């Protein structure tokens, strides 16, 4: 267990393009860091630099007290869980887990104890004599985890470890990983592009974009106060509705103080249906035309338009709406997000008295 310190790290594969661009992140001892971002943004590259599988072009990575830039992967005291598990196909489950230990010259007894312990934790006990090809996806995943656990390393690295599993198994494994990491208390870095994983697993969430860090923070902070339109649209499903401020028409009631507001955002679930043309309250009130209704069981999504802008609205339960319906929608003012022309989040963009607590009142009548 150790702190992990990433200091101005960059990676250049060829030419001058930076796959990772001056990234600095601190991961505390025992902390669970999740890296999210769109495909190709450099998540894997960063992780692989930590693992020692890629050379570090610039900057330094420190694990515990050691700068590891020049260390062999095997010398860094890390364990890695790969996307497609990367189990040794020719070794039994037991040997897959024991392999890393044997290479470190650990005593047989100790190896056996650790492997069996991990197997118990992961409920792999009866599978120890099987080969990977005789396992189901979820079981393979657990073996990959087991291989990491037995090592009791300074840090765990995960590269989209669940992306090959089906939805049900994925949600199950998610809980297991979190639980394990908590109980072992091992510093972890986890790469994913699945939001649910990012939100539920992270102690600290890093959103990356094009090799750079967009935002670092606790997951709910990132969710509630996205630092940019990029983060806003990336975190949360369905994505936050982002509407050019100009498209709203002049809306004095928002009590604009900061003239640089370029985009207003609000999440589908923060929208409430209001009686026709109800213009009360200090939030945003809009007219919404339903294009499509997607009932999903516990909730429904209304896809539609406000003016020319596409907007998604979430309705609890079964939506009574039909295509073509025109309804009034409103967003409590404290649930609005504002961004400048560069997509950066704006704080304090409204006059103080415009920020009331009407929203809380309105929630009570949320559409169902």
């Amino acid at each position, binding site marked *: 267990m150790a702190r992990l310190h990433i200091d101005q790290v960059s990676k250049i594969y060829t030419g001058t393009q930076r796959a990772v661009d001056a990234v600095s992140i601190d991961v505390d001892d025992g902390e669970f860091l999740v890296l999210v971002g769109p495909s190709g943004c450099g998540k894997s590259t960063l992780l692989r630099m930590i693992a020692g599988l890629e050379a570090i072009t610039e900057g330094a990575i420190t694990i515990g007290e050691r700068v590891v830039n020049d260390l*062999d992967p*095997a010398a860094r005291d890390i364990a890695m869980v790969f996307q497609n598990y990367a189990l*040794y196909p020719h070794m039994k489950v037991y040997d897959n887990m024991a392999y890393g230990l044997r290479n470190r010259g650990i005593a047989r007894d100790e190896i056996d104890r650790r492997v069996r312990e991990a197997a118990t934790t992961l409920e792999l006990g009866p599978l120890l004599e099987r080969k990977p090809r005789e396992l189901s996806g979820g079981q393979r995943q657990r073996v990959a985890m087991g291989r990491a656990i037995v090592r009791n390393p300074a840090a765990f690295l995960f590269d989209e470890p669940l992306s090959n599993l089906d939805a049900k198994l994925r949600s199950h494994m998610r809980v297991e990983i979190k639980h394990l990491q908590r109980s072992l208390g091992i510093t972890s870095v986890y790469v994913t592009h699945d939001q649910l994983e990012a939100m539920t697993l992270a102690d600290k969430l890093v959103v990356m974009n094009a090799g750079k860090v967009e935002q670092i923070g606790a997951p709910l902070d990132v969710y509630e106060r996205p630092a940019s339109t990029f983060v806003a649209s990336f975190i949360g499903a369905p994505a936050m509705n982002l509407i050019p401020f100009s498209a709203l028409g002049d809306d004095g009631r928002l009590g604009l103080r900061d003239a640089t507001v370029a985009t207003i955002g609000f999440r589908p679930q923060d929208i409430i249906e209001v009686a026709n043309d109800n213009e009360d309250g200090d939030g945003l009130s809009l007219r919404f035309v339903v294009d499509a209704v997607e009932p999903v069981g516990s909730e429904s999504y209304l896809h539609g338009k406000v003016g020319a802008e596409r907007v998604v609205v979430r309705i609890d339960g079964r939506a009574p709406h039909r295509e073509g319906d025109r309804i009034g929608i409103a967003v409590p003012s404290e649930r609005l997000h504002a961004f400048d022309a560069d997509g950066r989040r704006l704080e304090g963009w409204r006059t103080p008295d415009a920020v009331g607590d009407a929203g809380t009142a309105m929630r009570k009548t949320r559409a169902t």
Partner: protein
Amino acid sequence: MDKVRFGHSIVPYLFLLPQMAVVAVFFYLPAGEAVRSSFFLEDPFGFSSTFVGLDNYADVLSSTEYRRVAIFTVWFTVLVALFALAIALLLAVKADTVLRGAKTYRTLLMWVYAIAPPVAGLLGILLFDQHVGPFVDIASWFGWNLRIGVNYYDTAFAMIATAVWYQVAVNFIFFLSGLQSIPRAVREAALIDCRSGLRRFFTVTLPLLTPTAFFLLVINVTYALFDTFGLIDLMTKNEPGNNPVTLVYKVFLDGFRGNDLGGSSAQSVILMIVVFALTLVQFRFMERRVHYA
């Protein structure tokens, strides 16, 4: 799941016909003829023949010379396969590791494959010539009086060296492609699990190459058994004397050169039986080839 197949109709037979016809006419007919004549002693010109039952087999199997040849064949096959595989594997692993010049090495190492065996043999005899062969000079630096054609073992050495040289290229090609089909992530996992490159090779890379290696083993055994024919012919200068030869070459010597049809047919049949057994073993391996992941 088994391959999805078309139902049965006339079509598969039509597709099979050409190959079956060729195989029947040019393989089974001659092979059958070999079986038949292995029971006869026949005048080469075909004027007369005597049915001798299993005498030809008895003669062959009781011959100490045949046994000597068989033993050499086993050794030759084992050594050629072993060295050709080991050297090719080493080179393939290295060619797979280096970044710079990988393609050049690949080309250089592969092209020997294109050389005709008689040419390879010709090079072999010139390089190993007792009087002017450079390899003999090199050997003498190490105090080794290398005498191909005189000393049984020296000749065997030259044959094996030349045969290995020629086969390394083929093995290299297959090993390289085998290596490239090992998932990158597995190799990286090993990199994290194990510091020693050598140990990594033996515990992870090599086991994962076993399907390729099995396949190549069979190819190499076949090669050593049969395809070195031309090379041995050249190395022994068509006059084996007390030099080592392999079983196939002996079939050739007795039948083709010596016109002893019955005796050589019996040898052919014995070889066929051995070969059939080998085929069975091969398919055991091939079909149950470890299908990883």
